[in-house]
């Protein structure tokens, strides 16, 4: 916990789920004066769902309001629909159209939670923003720096989507669940009769219900993504695809081509509208370049360092060496070839439990 918490006041990002509800409860038990807020990020109409369809977001707001009532904390709904559209959905669409694999949750954390909510907290004279993420923020006295660590529950660890936190943000951010397992959190919720103790974890991308992002892109942009050719690694046409945006690097299922052996999507050319497929080996890469990098300590190390890296959310870390390029990018060389590293996704570097840096994968080299 923090050096001193003379003024224990926090704004809690409440989604209506178990995690943020228990976050509120725990902080209250720790003597914090809390207020809750739910961010309205999109409207049903915006994501192609009929307005009269019971919107998950309206139900979530109702759940969050219910928990706030039960815990007797002030609660409000903040409308970020415009900002979310401009800063998260628009980027999500752009990256897919450029052939990348976006990670909108990271942008949402960066812009909506740790920037916008913090502004609201400050206006309400609250000293912290608290969320239900499974990660830990600790203060390292020796270095005089805040460090971001993995959550105790390895299966729930969310440090991967939090790598963008700055020292200043970590100083006023609380993750009360970082030291707990999901099981413990559910038990706490059940003990206190929080309505949503058994609610399912959120899945997929919140604004793409059902997970069919190809359909979402078409409805959102009004475009029809043209069919095109599947090419093998030699450039030979081996089938027809249904629009290059619909395929993700590493994808094997639903390709609709039979070559007598399993094939995977290993590259896309958005200009020529072709999707390259190959065997498992053609998915492998050893080097990547990351941009939009955040070094959690505030600046890049002066020389190359051995680290452990994740290029996907739920991936076992892989040994690698990082070569900083200025403060904003780095080159990463893996000890062993990696499968399906996708531009647009985040790469996050660890040393033990500690997050060292993270960035967006800009280039993958074989």
């Amino acid at each position, binding site marked *: 916990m923090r050096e001193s918490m003379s003024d224990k006041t926090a704004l809690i990002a409440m989604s209506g789920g178990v995690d943020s509800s228990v976050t509120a409860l725990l902080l209250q038990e720790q003597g914090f004066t809390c207020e809750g807020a739910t961010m309205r990020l999109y409207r049903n109409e915006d994501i192609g769902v009929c307005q009269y369809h019971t919107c998950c977001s309206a139900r979530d*707001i109702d759940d969050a309001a219910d928990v706030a009532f039960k815990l007797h904390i002030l609660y409000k709904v903040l409308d970020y629909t415009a900002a979310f559209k401009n800063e998260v959905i628009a980027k999500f669409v752009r990256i897919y159209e450029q052939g990348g694999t976006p990670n909108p949750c990271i942008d949402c954390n960066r812009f909506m939670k740790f920037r916008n909510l913090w502004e609201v907290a400050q206006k309400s004279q609250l000293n912290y923003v608290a969320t239900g993420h499974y990660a830990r923020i600790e203060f390292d006295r020796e270095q005089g720096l805040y460090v971001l660590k993995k959550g105790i529950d390895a299966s729930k660890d969310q440090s991967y989507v939090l790598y963008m936190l700055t020292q200043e943000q970590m100083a006023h951010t609380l993750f009360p669940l970082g030291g707990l397992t999901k099981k413990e959190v559910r038990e706490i919720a059940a003990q206190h009769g929080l309505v949503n103790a058994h609610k399912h974890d959120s899945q997929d991308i919140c604004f793409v219900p059902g997970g069919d992002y190809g359909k979402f892109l078409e409805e959102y942009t009004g475009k029809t993504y043209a069919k095109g050719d599947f090419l093998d690694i030699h450039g030979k046409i081996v089938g027809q695809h249904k629009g290059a945006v619909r395929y993700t690097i590493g994808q094997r299922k639903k390709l609709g081509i039979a070559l007598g052996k399993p094939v995977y999507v290993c590259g896309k050319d958005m200009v020529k509208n072709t999707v390259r497929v190959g065997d498992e080996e053609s998915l492998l890469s050893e080097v990547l370049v990351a941009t939009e990098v955040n070094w959690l300590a505030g600046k890049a190390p002066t020389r190359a360092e051995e680290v452990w890296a994740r290029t996907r959310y739920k991936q076992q870390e892989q040994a690698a060496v990082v070569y900083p390029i200025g403060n904003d990018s780095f080159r990463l060389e893996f000890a062993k070839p990696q499968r399906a590293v996708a531009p647009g996704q985040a790469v996050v570097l660890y040393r033990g439990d500690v997050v060292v840096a993270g960035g967006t994968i800009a280039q993958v080299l074989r």
Partner: protein
Amino acid sequence: MVYLDYAANTPVNEEVLSAFCQVARQYQGNANSRHEEGWAAKAEMERLTVAVAALLGVKPSEIIFTSGATEANNTAIKGIAKAMQGVGKHILSTPLEHSSVTGCLQALQKQGYEVEYLSLQADGKINLHDLETKLRNDTVLVAVCAVDSELGTIQPLAEIAAVLQNYPNCHLHVDATQAVGKVAFPLQGIDTMSFAPHKFYGLCGSGILFKRKNVELVPLLEGGASTTSYRSGTPALALAAGTETALRLAVESRHNWWEIVVQRHTLLRQQLSHYPKVHINSPIHGSPYILNLSVAGVRGQNFQSLLNEFGICVSVKSACSSDGQPSQAVLALTHDYWNALSSWRLSLSHLTTEAQVQEFLVAFAKCYKKLTTQ
């Protein structure tokens, strides 16, 4: 099923529906067309307008048919604000207004208008002294509901109008949606007034804006001359016929309806007051058509949902706003955030029978027990 949400919508009266159907079948012309069918439609539109005006005791030229009270409020508030912007940009209103009023005021604030809200007395009426203090030479509009939709407070319109007499630049807009056909009030001193017949057994999709002669307002809609230059669009003849019938029935029956509703209201208030955790939010001398209450420690939404499971329809705040926020009206009157979050509303009709009230009370007792002993 016991329907106790008449302030949100009422069932359509058969006579209203027949008038609508009959006129819809009989006239095919556009009232703005210059031929036999058009003239026939125009004549009927004029007849209906004259009839509506007579029922309200105003001039036919002062009647504007709209799509509902929401549009009528928008037309009046935005229209007056725009027409008066050279004179002033200061507007006064109350914390009791419907969102179609507060929504306009918030939009005007973004355009540089200054909006202030009047404080309430313990009985829910606006504080006239506060009104006198806040009025300025550049105040161009006071927007007040005759009866508010959440608590049923009745505002002292005659007194408000009297205060405004000394402010010739200032207009008085009255949202009378919960008053017409229920609570009588004098039109003297009122510049614009809105209401919608679906609150008294008419049809949704129609509304009336009374705009006193000489009051200037800039219309919301452009293009398409109509029966009035303040509201474009092909005259909705059949809806106007429904409005006329609904209004006529309401005016004729107002006293009888009132007597019945007062009885139901009194019984409900008496019975509900016995519960230690019940707080009746509606003022005693408010409209008998509305009874707002809180059950301490139970979120209004939760009480409403459980009542719904027992086949009882009531509502929390005004229909369909799920933002987790307390009712601003209840908060303004009771000054208690948690009480406001616990509040919900019963709204009555002459159609509400004593047996239905008893059925509600039985369901209420069960819900109360379940939700307060958890």
